[in-house]
């Protein structure tokens, strides 16, 4: 039967969320002839809807439903109701991401083995490795049309990159370039980058890959995919045999419906996915679905992050051109002689004046702060993306004291830095400042992490059922027709921006699911 599908149709695969994980999975399944209903909590926005205005776009696209925070991270103090800067819309955070598309390094799939025991960290090896992922990364890079892969040219460097590159080279860094980006450097299926800036606000040219205007319409064109927008999933239900049989969601008017399903794939990001599993608790599964290990919600990771901004005595105009315009990869190696395990990437970043005022030093006031903003035109900036340590106590739990608009307990996000995280961030702050000092910075700013965009690990993948929530296919250890398809599967975070890996895992999962469905194993 072609889309749209009946609520009672229990032959469909239901995918919850349409971002890098869910959006890609839904399309890949549809391409293989599998019937898919994708439920998306947000609305549908396309390039003509995006706005080159930071706060207006933030209001248009962001997930702003209630969440709470705890732990010693500064986000809990400065942005207590906003732990994440992610998107609620068809296409999810692929609308907002900057486009950096990096493969994990081989050793990062085996962090527990490679790094050895780290006190207080719950490191674990992934049950998959670089060799297994290579072909899926190839497919992901081709899908996203990543620069500097498969014959694609790199993007040209903007002013912010030129300052960064000059400093990096003066410092002796060697792996410095304009990145592997899911932004077209030439016209193709997508238009080439026009160096407009505002990558975070949705690319109005459609030059950056976003599931919203690539995978989603491609999947819909097959007739096998129905995307229901403004369909906010409240819980997943199961039968007496313990298998899941459908999901209950609220539509745009708040009316509840149940979509029956043969298989359910959860891809609501690392806050909403575990929250949904926990909110689906029943007498058979009192701790929530797929939670016999007690691992649902645990090991929340968010990458190290932090930024370094610098002021020069002459203009930079960093906001011109791609937001993330280049990378230094020399520090991404694992080299414990630096005083920490794992590594970090340095990537250029720019914020417009409104967001710079909000994020440069949240809560700060007075002349130390405003004299920095006075030099906005002369600023350059970079972002730190480093591997943070998984910790069992960094976790998403249900906050029963705070309910969302549907009366469901909201997610509380608890995060405290591990000593390894602090050591790595301090190192990165020092190196980032050195890059800019090398080209004459008059002042540098070690800027604390923003609300998180890289949210990972709360339904982690594990070889053994006791250590995690899903197996190597993203299939939950406990319930064979329940899958996790987003970044919450991550066993460890690695140093790289996660989207390419989420996409590669989704393509691989679709291939697996289609085979299992055809074999009647599910």
């Amino acid at each position, binding site marked *: 039967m072609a889309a749209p599908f009946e609520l009672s149709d229990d032959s469909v695969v239901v995918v919850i969320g349409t971002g890098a994980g869910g959006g890609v999975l839904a399309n890949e399944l549809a391409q293989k002839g599998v019937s898919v209903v994708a439920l998306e909590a947000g609305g549908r926005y396309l390039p003509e809807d995006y*706005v*080159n*205005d*930071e*706060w207006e776009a933030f209001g248009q696209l962001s997930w702003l439903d209630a969440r709470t925070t705890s732990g010693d991270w500064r986000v809990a103090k400065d942005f207590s109701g906003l732990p994440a800067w992610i998107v609620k819309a068809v296409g999810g955070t692929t609308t907002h991401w900057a486009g950096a598309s990096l493969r994990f390094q081989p050793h990062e799939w085996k962090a527990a083995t490679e790094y050895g025991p780290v006190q207080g960290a719950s490191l674990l090896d992934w049950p998959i490795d670089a060799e297994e992922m290579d072909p899926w990364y190839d497919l992901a890079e081709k899908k996203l049309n990543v620069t500097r892969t498969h014959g694609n040219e790199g993007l*040209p*460097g*903007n*002013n912010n990159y*030129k*300052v960064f590159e*000059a400093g990096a080279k003066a410092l002796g860094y060697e792996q410095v370039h304009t990145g592997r980006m899911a932004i077209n450097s030439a016209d193709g299926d997508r238009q080439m*980058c*026009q*160096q*407009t*800036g*505002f990558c975070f606000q949705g690319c*109005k*040219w459609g030059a950056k890959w976003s599931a919203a205007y690539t995978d989603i319409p491609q999947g819909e064109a097959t007739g096998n995919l129905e995307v229901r927008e403004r369909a906010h999933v409240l819980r997943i239900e199961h039968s007496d045999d313990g298998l899941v049989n459908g999901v209950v969601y609220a539509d745009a008017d708040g009316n509840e419906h149940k979509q029956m399903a043969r298989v359910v794939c959860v891809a609501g990001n690392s806050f909403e996915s575990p929250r949904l599993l926990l909110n689906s608790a029943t007498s058979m599964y009192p701790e929530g679905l797929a939670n016999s290990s007690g691992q649902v919600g645990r090991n929340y990771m968010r990458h190290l992050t932090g930024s370094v901004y610098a002021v020069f005595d*002459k*203009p*930079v*105009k960093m*906001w*011109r*051109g791609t937001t993330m315009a280049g990378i230094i990869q020399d520090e991404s190696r694992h080299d414990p002689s630096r005083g920490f395990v794992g590594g970090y990437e340095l990537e250029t970043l720019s914020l*417009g*004046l*409104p967001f*710079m*005022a*909000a994020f440069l030093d949240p*809560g700060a*006031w*007075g*002349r130390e*702060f*405003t004299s920095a*903003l*006075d030099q*906005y*035109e002369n600023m350059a900036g970079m972002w730190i993306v480093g591997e943070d340590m998984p910790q069992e106590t960094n976790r998403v739990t249900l906050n029963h004291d705070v309910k969302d608009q549907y009366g469901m307990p909201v997610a509380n996000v608890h995060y405290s830095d591990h000593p390894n995280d602090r050591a790595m961030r301090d190192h990165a702050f020092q190196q980032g400042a050195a890059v800019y000092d090398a*080209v004459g910075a008059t002042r540098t700013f070690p800027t604390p992490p923003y609300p998180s965009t890289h949210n990972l690990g709360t339904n982690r993948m594990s070889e053994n059922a006791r250590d995690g929530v899903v197996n190597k296919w993203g299939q939950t250890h406990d319930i064979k027709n329940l899958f996790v398809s987003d970044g919450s599967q991550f066993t460890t975070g690695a140093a790289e921006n996660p989207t390419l890996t989420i996409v590669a895992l989704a393509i691989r999962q679709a291939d697996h699911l289609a085979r299992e469905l055809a074999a009647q194993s599910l």
Partner: protein
Amino acid sequence: MNIQSKPRAMTRRQLLKNSAAAGSAFVVGAGYLAGADAAWATETSALEPRTMATLVQMARDIYPHDRVSDEYYVVAVKGYDTPEAAEEIEVGIAMLDGAARGKGHGSYLDIGWERERVDVLRQIEASPFFQKIRGGLVTGLYNQKAVWPIFGYEGESFSQGGYLDRGFDDITWL
């Protein structure tokens, strides 16, 4: 009443003098503030004019930008000049003046040096009132499109075709 002076320069004596000069020609309860150079003017509807003048000074002392004129700070706090918000602001500014008196000044506006006004602000920094004003200014001041050019920020670029042919890589001093 008509206050023809910059808020910062407006002392109690001037306020009294101006009030006397204005006499009954103006409706009691309606306020009017104007910059000394007449570059900006605002009427208050719910707040006492002196409260608005103090609030504008407070806003500038929280986020002082010497190249940004008072009119932008007025716009940034004008939203508090409503019947719903006025009481909380009046109470908050009274607290601020109280803190100023505690440091031996007549009122917040009587303090001549920014450094000494900042000392007073530090006294109330943890209060919900201060945090409300500061937090509101982050968007109230910096999200005004009219102030962006003062900082060199160019705002949206899509309508002009981005910067591909307009200087995305025009840096020359490296």
